[in-house]
């Protein structure tokens, strides 16, 4: 291997690592606040990428109907409860957000010639479709069992992952998609050609990480989420409801997932089931951070990205084996260093 190849591999590694870092942060956040292990994070990546791809090919993304369906269910459940309690205005609010919004969005996306829109608008519409599924998913799938053991929540996540992959196949078909790059220029750094998309990925990741840092450090809602993660009982006594915290967290996680998908769609061909492996690598990184430390998770993500890039050069057939076998020593180290008295349910 010469220097040039090493540089190219490093570039790949850092690009992928940046995405894994975003996903890892979301996973850590979701776990800390809700104790849910967010296996289906990868599906949000795929949904984001493929929804954008569908828009660009001028087709109405089927994900919008999923949003309508989920919203309708939430409306029936929460609106019903509100009506029962005689809170008509609240019921109307629930219906507006969960049914009115998806339908309006479907009308907009269906009515416009979305393939002719500028990229930035397409990305915005993609996020508008995919991201609200996060809090709705929390409401429908996790809120009823919010106090269940971690293992039950984990199995629910796995089940949702399976269901979302199936839906992905239905929505997007078995064909892989790749979207055009955000911009066409590339940067020459010595022997290395840095593509614009790489710069986009790294820049947006860094920006997003800084924004999240500000959100958690400065805003009261961000602090409330951190407080919930640190001490659930204490947070509840401050009036921070676990439901609010859960929905907010899932909103952020879905946003990060869908945005990651949009970012990598021009670099990798995304299939309906690609998300799982991408998400799982974010997972390896999150576990390196013990599902608790954000900086360690981000560092782990870069390590996973680089390991993957170099492994694909040396032993490309075994690259997945190498990356996933890495989890076991990491898990082992994690579970030996975290001293909690074990009494799982």
């Amino acid at each position, binding site marked *: 291997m010469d220097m040039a190849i090493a540089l190219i591999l490093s570039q790949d590694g850092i690009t992928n690592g940046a995405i894994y870092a975003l996903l890892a942060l979301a996973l850590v956040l979701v776990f800390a606040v809700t104790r849910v292990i967010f296996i289906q994070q990868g599906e949000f990546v795929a949904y984001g990428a493929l929804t954008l791809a569908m828009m660009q090919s001028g087709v109405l993304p089927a994900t919008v109907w999923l949003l309508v369906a989920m919203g309708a269910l939430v409306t029936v459940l929460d609106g019903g409860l509100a009506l029962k309690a005689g809170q008509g205005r609240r019921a109307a609010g629930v219906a507006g957000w969960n049914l009115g919004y998806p339908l309006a969005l479907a009308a907009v996306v269906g009515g416009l010639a979305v393939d002719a829109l500028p990229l930035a608008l397409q990305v915005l519409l993609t996020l508008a479709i995919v991201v609200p599924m996060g809090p709705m998913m929390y409401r429908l799938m996790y809120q*009823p*069992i919010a106090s269940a053991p971690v293992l039950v929540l984990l199995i629910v996540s796995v089940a949702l992952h399976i269901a979302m992959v*199936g839906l992905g196949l239905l929505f997007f078909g078995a064909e892989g998609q790749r979207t055009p790059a955000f911009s066409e220029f590339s940067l020459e750094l010595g022997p290395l050609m840095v593509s614009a998309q790489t710069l986009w990925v790294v820049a947006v990741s860094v920006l997003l990480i800084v924004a999240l840092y500000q959100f958690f450090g400065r805003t009261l809602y961000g602090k409330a989420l951190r407080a919930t993660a640190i001490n659930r009982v204490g947070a509840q006594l401050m009036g921070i409801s676990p439901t609010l915290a859960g929905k907010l967290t899932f909103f952020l996680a879905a946003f990060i997932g869908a945005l990651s998908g949009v970012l990598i769609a021009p670099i990798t061909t995304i299939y309906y089931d690609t998300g799982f492996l991408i998400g799982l690598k974010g997972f390896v990184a999150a576990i390196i951070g013990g599902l608790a430390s954000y900086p360690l998770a981000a560092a782990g993500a870069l390590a996973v990205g680089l390991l993957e890039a170099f492994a694909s050069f040396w032993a490309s057939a*075994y690259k*997945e*084996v190498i990356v996933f076998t890495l989890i076991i020593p990491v*898990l082992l180290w994690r579970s030996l260093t975290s001293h909690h008295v074990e009494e799982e349910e």
Partner: protein
Amino acid sequence: MRADRLVLGAFVALLLLVPAILSPYYVTLLNYIGLYAMVALGLVLLTGVGGLTSFGQAAFVGLGAYTTAALTTATDLPGWLAWAGASPWLTLLVGLLLTAAVAVLIGSLTLKLSGHFLPLGTIAWGISLYFLFGTMESLGGHTGISGIPAIALFGWTLDEGGEIYYLIWAFLLVAMLTTHNLLDSREGRAIRALKGGRVMAEAMGVDTSRSRMVIFVIAALLACASGWLYAHMQRFVNPTPFGVHIGIEYLFMAVVGGAGYVWGAIVGAGVITVLKQWLQNWLPSLLGATGNFETIVFGLLMVLVLHRAREGLWPILRKLVPVRTVRRTLDADAEPLPRRTLPKAGELILEAKEVTRRFGGLVANNNMSLEVRAGEILALIGPNGAGKSTMFNQISGVDTPTSGEVLFLGKPVAGHDSREIARMGMSRTFQHVKLLPTMSVLENVAIGAHLRSNKGVLSSAWRLDRAEEARILKEAARQIERVGLAEHMYEEAGSLALGQQRILEIARALCADPCLLLLDEPAAGLRFKEKEALGELLKKLRAEGMATLIVEHDMDFVMSLVDRVVVMEFGQKIAEGLPDEIQQNPAVLEAYLGGVE
């Protein structure tokens, strides 16, 4: 004839008739159900009973299938292995040995993982093994291996679906029987304690790490056998059926069927397999596209099961079948279990010498000394937060003092794990009751006798343990009668009132035949009459020479029962003496009522 035998007999008879009645399509379907149920059965043991969630079982199925496929089709086996290719029965043996070895290796790495890290670990090795099957050239890569011979049994070649059907279901029924036997035994109680009762089980002398490994290996072996049968049924293997998504499907089967129940495996495998078949025919035409859309339904079904019926379908189905679990019969003639010789009254049993325990800057116990003698009841009391629980942990060996030491029968407690301490004759109850709520009172108490018996996994699985089991149950029943719970003997422990559950813990502790009894708030939640009865029992034990240390809040109970009292505040001993002296002591009054000036 008992109703349950009748139902079982009818079920087996029906199974025997299937190939004669049903079309080959249904026979094939039943073959798959049998194969899947065997893997799901392993998960019942591992996940439902033992609480260890695995998404990676498909990899062990693959190990069994690939071992036999590679060995029976290879033409150039090295000399030392050449014998193995001669017959599928030999490759089954090789496969089981290999799987056991791999399971022990993977288990020793991943079973140490705590909580949710373990299932994540199983995803990791599940994926890794799957990619390995697909990338190794010698295993045919993604095209796989074909030309696998059929199994022959006494000259009868099982090369038709209707023939191997019998083998598959015979394997499954034998596996179910042995699993059922295993769970209903000394080892089985230890396994059933893994889920939510590890701390308690260790305190009763159960090696829970070993029990975890046992069920992990058994589950892997069941999966391996299923893989072996699969390879010889299909006569062809490729990596697809051994991926992590199939591993997830196996877990779904166990959970949907009822992960806590042996029969749940068949129900779950049946429901998921039939549903899959049906959905695969029906969904693509409905949706106008081809693909494995059944996963959508499975995923949502799974969420629904976890929301609405976390125990799975079997408990619901069981209500429809006129079968009730048979009450254990006690053998009055069983020989009593061996007993230890109790120390003579007045002999020093427990001695804490200047025990100090610091947590960072906080001193939870400061220079605490106390002693308990045979035939004496000592009470340790003090206001909330005085450090009594910490002291209790130092004495019971759960925690180690920063300085000072605790001697039990003259030997230091520090450095021994709960099991060794239990073996030395210290037995305890817990402040927050730790019992297995769905097990009967009798079985819960029987766990206490774990160290007084020794029959292992194989004897349990094949019912060679019955004489010893009768002795254990007789002893458990004796202790239950002694503490006054005889009328509740066959009820679920979780259905008892909290006070009775505390009494159950005392019976369990006594079942271990201890010479020192540590009781953590035994009277909490008891009614007046029950407290009186408990007091009488403790007095009787004292007369027999038992040494007892009791932490208690109920002052009436303490003062009328115990011989001596030690009072703690701020981690220190502030008074020690006879009950009457303590009640007059101004420092104690101050500690309990608080001072102002």
